[in-house]
């Protein structure tokens, strides 16, 4: 029973962390891992959808490494949830989103 509570607690904590991450405000240069990015000709929709996000200044698509590198305009921030939704709407699967300096 104790184990069950511990597992439940860990599960709820993970959900909470995810929820917090999704609401994160992004600034500066952001690295987005995009799964399903297997062909350069497919990436146009991804680029177009990310351009729609207010505050995104430049987008660089790295097909070989499955990445979209976004530069957020100075003094602006972008909602992580919006980035994820626009990637999904483009037909891809968003994974980790990190500040570029994080690696």
């Amino acid at each position, binding site marked *: 029973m104790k184990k069950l509570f511990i597992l439940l607690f860990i599960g709820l904590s993970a959900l909470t962390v995810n929820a917090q991450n999704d609401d994160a405000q992004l600034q500066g240069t952001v690295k987005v891992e995009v799964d399903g990015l297997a062909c350069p000709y497919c990436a146009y929709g991804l680029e177009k959808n990310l351009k729609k996000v207010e505050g995104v200044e430049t987008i660089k698509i790295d097909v070989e490494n499955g990445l979209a590198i976004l530069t957020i305009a100075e003094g602006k921030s972008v909602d992580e949830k919006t980035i994820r939704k626009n990637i999904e709407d483009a*037909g891809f699967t968003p*994974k980790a989103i990190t500040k570029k300096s994080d690696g």
Partner: protein
Amino acid sequence: MKLAKLIGCSCLLIVTTMVSAQGPPIFTDTPIMLGVQGRGVRTFGNIISKENANAYAQVLVVPYNITSKWQVAAVVPYVSISPNVGDSQSGFGDLKFFTKYQLYKKDGKGKTLRGLIKLTETFPTGNTSNSPPLGTDAYQTTLSLVNGYVTTKYGIYGEVGYNLAGSGLPDNLIYNIAFGYPLLPQKYPPNQLNVFLELNGNYVFDNVGNNLFLSPGIQYIAGRKLLFESGIQIPLAEAAPANQQTNYILRIGARLLIF
């Protein structure tokens, strides 16, 4: 002749597997409704050489993505047929509409596995009052499953469909498989040179027989919005009677991203 074809096909297979290309296949359908496959128009010319006639079909395909999972499209062919004996005929052929819906998608880093269901309806809009006819004079419904596994290194595509033909025409089973390899490094905006090797089959029921083509092709993607492609279909098996068989079908086309 058959030995020469076999040797030729084997050489093409070896050459295309030695090189390391992928984009949308030229004759086989793709489950990826992205980029030029979902936001652009496609046009191609088919030069058809038969033992008893030569024909040319200019086809315009206009797809539109309602969502990233659901696409509708119209296919408009303009056909010109010159038989060895008799008058030539030109005009619009049978109009088609199709819809595709993505059934599954499994994405990974630099790879994707996708499958969709496709429903095509053919309308008998081609003139059939003169000979040779420009259409089939039959409403036809095709239900297909299209699958593909695409990575940054290669692409494998498969399509199987059942065509319900009306007006007493025999039904047929459509089966296609395609392999694609990129010759240039993958980058965006694209500058891609891709080669393909496809097998395009069509089994016609009611004891008519099997049609099978080997189809090597090449494709150049010039930037974000423009793609050029060409492929040739070489018959390996044909159901048509002697002296009506296909020598080859040469396709030259382009896709332009507009939406």
